[in-house]
Structures are given as C-alpha cells and as structure tokens.
C-alpha cells in the first residue's frame, strides 16, 4: 500500500491550504489522537475537545512557520497533543488557545472510517477469524474486550498468561490486516466518513 509521505512537499501543501492534504492530515492523525486519548480520558467530549485544540495549535504553528522538520510532523502533533492533554489535566482555561485566531472546526472523524460495503466485508472477515478460533479463545476475547473484565483475572480464570493473550491478539490482527490494508488502499487518501460537529 502506498503511504503518504510526511515531507516538505506535504507540509507546503498543508500550509497552502490544499483541501485534500488537510483532509488527509486531519483524518490520519485524528485516529491516532483518539487512540492515544481514550486510555487517558473517559469522556468522549473531553477527547473531542483535546483533539480539536491539538489541531488548532498545530495549524497555528504551521501558519507561523514553526514546523521546521517536516519529516517529524508526526512527533510534532504528538507533542502538541501531550501539551494540550497536560493543560486539560490541570483544568486550565481554554483562553490560552489563541482566542484572536478564527476558530477552525475540524470535522470529527469517527475511528470507524469505513464505507458500508467495506464495513460489511470487515465484519465478515472478523466473524470468520473468530469462528476459526477455539471456543476458549473466543470467550477470552469476549471477556477482555467486550465485558472489559480485569485482564489478570480473565487470564487466571482461563489458565493462560498475559503473553498468551498478546499472541492471540497478534495472530488475529495479522489475519485481519491484509483485508484492512486492501480496504485502506482502495480508498483515496482523505476520503473518509466525516461528520461536521
């Protein structure tokens, strides 16, 4: 699969306001930011607030030429997110975010970025992967991910260790990944299910 390169050309297009580049940028990093935040913030609204503020500051930095290493764009976004998160923890006022700048709204991109057909294919593939598993492994995944029981307790009950759980997830992910990559490749960059907030 051809991956988008975060290089000088990409940053230039982002800076110039190229729509597709901006759409790709927001979609790509929204997913990573949401994965990062969901283990740290429990409120969907808080996650959304931090995500929006992160992008606000990144674009502000872009406009003022503060992104000096285009190939480290990802690390810059991560670092900005960390800063916003720290401020959120300290429950500081949002007044520190550039009030005199026009607040740009970054469309909330769901982690589930699939079209209907792709989602159906993915669901079928996952059902197939789960059906091929021993019943015990299916129950293990159910208790860990669906019922969200304590993982140590679940492993004890099933007589396995944490490494078994990791290997189980790793193997299932590898089986699923080829279809996932195929679906991602079939979608042009930035074409996602986006809803205006």
């Amino acid at each position: 699969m051809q991956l988008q390169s975060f290089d000088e050309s990409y940053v230039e297009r982002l800076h110039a306001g190229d729509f597709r580049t901006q759409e790709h940028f927001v979609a790509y990093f929204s997913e990573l930011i949401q994965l990062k935040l969901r283990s740290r913030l429990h409120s969907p609204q808080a996650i959304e607030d931090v995500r929006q503020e992160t992008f606000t500051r990144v674009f502000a930095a872009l406009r003022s030429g503060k992104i000096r290493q285009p190939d480290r764009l990802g690390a810059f976004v991560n670092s900005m997110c960390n800063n916003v998160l720290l401020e959120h923890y300290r429950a500081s006022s949002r007044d520190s975010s550039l009030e005199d700048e026009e607040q740009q709204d970054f469309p909330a991109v769901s982690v589930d970025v699939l079209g209907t057909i792709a989602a159906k294919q993915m669901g079928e593939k996952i059902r197939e992967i789960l059906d091929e598993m021993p019943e015990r492994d299916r129950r293990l995944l159910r208790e860990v991910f669906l019922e969200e029981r304590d993982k140590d307790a679940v492993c004890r009950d099933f007589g396995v260790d944490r490494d078994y759980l990791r290997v189980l997830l790793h193997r299932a992910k590898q089986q699923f990944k080829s279809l996932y990559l195929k679906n991602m490749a079939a979608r042009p960059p930035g074409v996602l299910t986006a809803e205006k907030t």
Partner: protein
Amino acid sequence: MNHDEALRQKATEKYLLDELDPEVKDQFEEHLFDCQDCALDVRAAAMFVEQTKVVLSAPAVTSPVRVPAAAPARAGWLAWFRPAFAVPVLALLLAVVGYQNLVTYPHLMQAANSPQVVPWASVNVDTRGTATTVIKTRPGQGFSLLVNLPPEDGFASYAADLYNPAQKLEWSGAISTAAGEQGRQIYIPGRNRQAGTYTLVVHGITTAGESKEISRLPIDLQIQN
C-alpha cells in the same frame, strides 16, 4: 523506541491491552506518530478489536422454523439407529476404540515415559558473530538447545523467540534463571518439523520490564533419513 524494538516487544498488542508502562507508552506513541507502518498496525488492531466487540455482542442468528403444511411420514434422523445401520457402525467404532486403547495409547505412553536420547547443541548467548550451529536429527525427532546465558550482565530475566526457516515466529517463551545458573535447555519437538535455518533470538529483560535483544543465533537443522 525504534521500529524493531516496537515489533519485538509486540508493542501494538501491549498498547491496545494497556500493558505498557507510562514511560514506555509515551515512547511508543512518539514512535507511532512518526512511523506509518506502526500506525497502520495499531489502526488495524484497533479496528479488529472494535469490530470483534460488535460481532461478539450480536445475538446468535436462528433460522426460522418452517412448519410443512402436509409432510409425509418420515423416520427422521432416528432411522440411523436402526440395526441395519447401527450395528456395523458401532462394531467399527468398537474396533477403533479397542485398537487405540490396547495398542496405540500404551505404545505412546511407553514412548513418552521412556528416557530418550535426542541430539542437542550448546549455544552461547554472549557470542558475538554469526556462527551457525548445526544439528542433525531424524524425521520426527526433536532436539535440545542448551542455552548458555552470559553471567552477571544485569538482566533480571531473559526471553527467547524461535523463528522457523520461513522467518515466521514459531515460539516465544520466558527463560528464568536461578541465581548462579547460566544454562537452560530448550526442547524443540520434531513432529512436522522442516529442515532449514532456524533463528533463536534471545532478549534480556531489565528490572523495569524493558526488553533488549542480546543475541541472534542461527541453527541449521539437518534432517537425515
């Protein structure tokens, strides 16, 4: 954290299972935001987890039962229990069960409980260089690796990964050591085993839980008839 370390530590799985220490988690995220391969890996795994929840939470689909308006009388599945079918089938089953209990299982138990001499080789974990260890076995025969760990190198424990000739991870396991012991034996079963170059990768685990690759040992398995 670099890409190889992320792969070796199964950082993606640990990240989604929330098993990474806060410091390691921060390091992985810093790498994740810059590494598109790892980002793709995490996104695929996260998608798998989310969709698995959907699939596992869906109620089981049951087919609607059709009641025939006028069905002819049928013997149904109980017809299989008529003597004409049941007797020869049961006789065959009895013969199979009998053979297994009287011949196969005792033979297997005897083989499993008898001392066995298997080929073995000693591998030194602190060896620099890529000298290949050669082991010769017969088809179906297992072999042992005596893993000599480096003395007093500061690691709390060790872990090993075994890769088959196709470079696919076949086995991972922890190697714990009692104080003063540097040798551990790993038995590799011979059933369905292919000849070729296997790779044993040994990692040192620090007291903080960080993993560091300390040796990559090629093993040339030669199967002779």
